[in-house]
């Protein structure tokens, strides 16, 4: 009986997966070529790749905060609560708040003004030069908490005497963490890189849509918004579907590459 229901639960799932397969067929590969030749699609993919540059920053910051929290004697629960809060907030809410914070007269520029750096003020999201970086910064702001909680939970489960021993031997902050903490955390860091890498390539729709809708002048157009606007605004679902297939293949290729890289790493350990 359990098996029967299992099959039923599966039915809903089949529905979803089969619908994916249906699209490429009957249209041939011509659509894919059109999409690949579209300069807008290429620049969208380029933007996704540029967003990937946020990945090392995000990971380094998360590691730093996790290590600080792990060593803090007082109040680390308060900080953890605060740092994790952005991760829980709805992305549309975050997007709308930041589209206010980052305007010409928003909080950020007023803050810059207050510390005498008013000259640096920009319309962060309204300028093609800065918009993509601003979107990246907002993503870092929101995703940071996930990494912190992940790394911290691993740090807390490590035996404290390893650190004590190293400290007694005279290891400073930098040496202690590069020689001991990082190698111990390597598997979980790898996992975090994979998850956030996938996020930055194929789950940024919510951010971009609420912050800039792909503008100004397509400066923040990413693969997902391209698919969305091709399907809705330009009413070309088959082209959108081809673009979706390209994205899907890309994501799976990334997964495979990561898996192979991790297997290699694991072998090196032996």
């Amino acid at each position, binding site marked *: 009986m*359990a*098996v029967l229901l*299992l099959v*039923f*639960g599966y039915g*809903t*799932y089949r*529905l*979803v997966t089969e619908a*994916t397969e249906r699209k490429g067929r009957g249209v041939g590969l011509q659509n894919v070529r059109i999409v690949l030749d579209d300069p807008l699609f290429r620049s969208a993919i380029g933007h996704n790749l540029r967003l990937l540059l946020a990945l090392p920053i995000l990971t380094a910051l998360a590691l730093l*905060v996790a290590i*600080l929290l792990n060593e*803090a004697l007082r*109040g*680390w629960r308060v*900080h953890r*609560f*605060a*740092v*994790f*809060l*952005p991760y*829980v*907030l*709805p992305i*549309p*809410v975050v997007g*709308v*708040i930041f589209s*206010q914070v980052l305007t010409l*007269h928003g*909080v950020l520029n*007023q803050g810059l003004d207050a510390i005498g750096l008013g000259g640096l003020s920009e319309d962060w999201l309204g300028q093609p030069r800065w918009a993509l970086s601003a979107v990246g910064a907002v993503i870092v*702001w929101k995703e940071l908490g*996930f990494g912190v*909680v*992940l790394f911290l939970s691993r740090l807390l489960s490590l035996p404290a005497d390893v650190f004590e021993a190293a400290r007694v031997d005279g290891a400073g902050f930098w040496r202690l963490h590069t020689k001991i903490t990082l190698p111990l955390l390597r*598997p*979980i860091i*790898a*996992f975090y890189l994979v*998850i956030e890498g*996938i996020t930055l390539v194929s*789950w940024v729709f*919510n951010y971009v*849509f*609420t912050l800039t809708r792909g503008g100004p002048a397509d400066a923040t157009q990413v*693969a*997902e918004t391209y*698919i*969305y606007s091709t399907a*809705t605004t330009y009413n070309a*679902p088959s082209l*959108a*579907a081809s673009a*979706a297939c390209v*994205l*899907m293949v890309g*994501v799976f290729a990334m*997964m495979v590459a990561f898996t192979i890289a991790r297997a290699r790493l694991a072998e090196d350990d032996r």
Partner: protein
Amino acid sequence: MRRPRLTTSISQVLLWLFTLAALVPVYVMVSASLRTQSDFLNHPFGLPLAPSLTSFRTALNDQFPRWLFNSLVLSGGSVLVTLAFASLAAWGFARHRFRGRETLLNVIVALMVVPPVVLVVPLFLLGVQLDLINTFRLVIVIYVGLMLPFSIYMLTAYFRTVPSALLDAAIVDGATEVQVFRRIVLPLSKAPLLTLLVVNLLWVWNELLIALVFLQSDDSRTLMAGLTAFQNRYNLDIPVVMAGLTLATLPIFILYLFGQRYFMRGLVAGAIKGE
């Protein structure tokens, strides 16, 4: 503990900086929502010295309650269905041997990385064919489909840790399989079920893309899709927009306040497979 003063204070300062950075945008939202339009324009980011609820009233008089209701129905419905399916499926994976079990489980795990945007086009065409656009039924099915992989994966891992001696003993005592499942396994699994409940609720509540595409009529919008419409409708009256955002965040915030443990545990549980 012998630790240099300097490092400790530097790290305290750094921590407070991060905490502050995390909280400032939230403060901006709440403080703006508590003020009137003119007050906001005069000094946008000071403390709300004379809090006013005008903005909240405007927001609530719009279609806000309707959207809130939609979001509640959608998230409640789809999460409950997901938990029911996932626990039954996970039970099958954990307790019964059948051909291709491991392969099937691996396929499910792989499905976790499929970006939803890929599914939007084919499912939308299907929805048009079946005349199910703007209905909750289709959207709930999609949400359930998207939540199942992670839920099944996590519950299977948990069910496998339930000692089979316990279950076999119950069967020897004459319990049926269904009874074992309902009386023994489910009560033992309260923690992972609660974790899944919280994590999934959060996800559906915050979901935008599918809500935007499949629920286009004003009456069927979800809160998140409604908020983006709100942003356009009141783009000159920031306090009203912020009041809307505050209202939309409140349920999540309350959930987070009381269920912080489950949020964090859910995320870490998802990470175990990565190692």
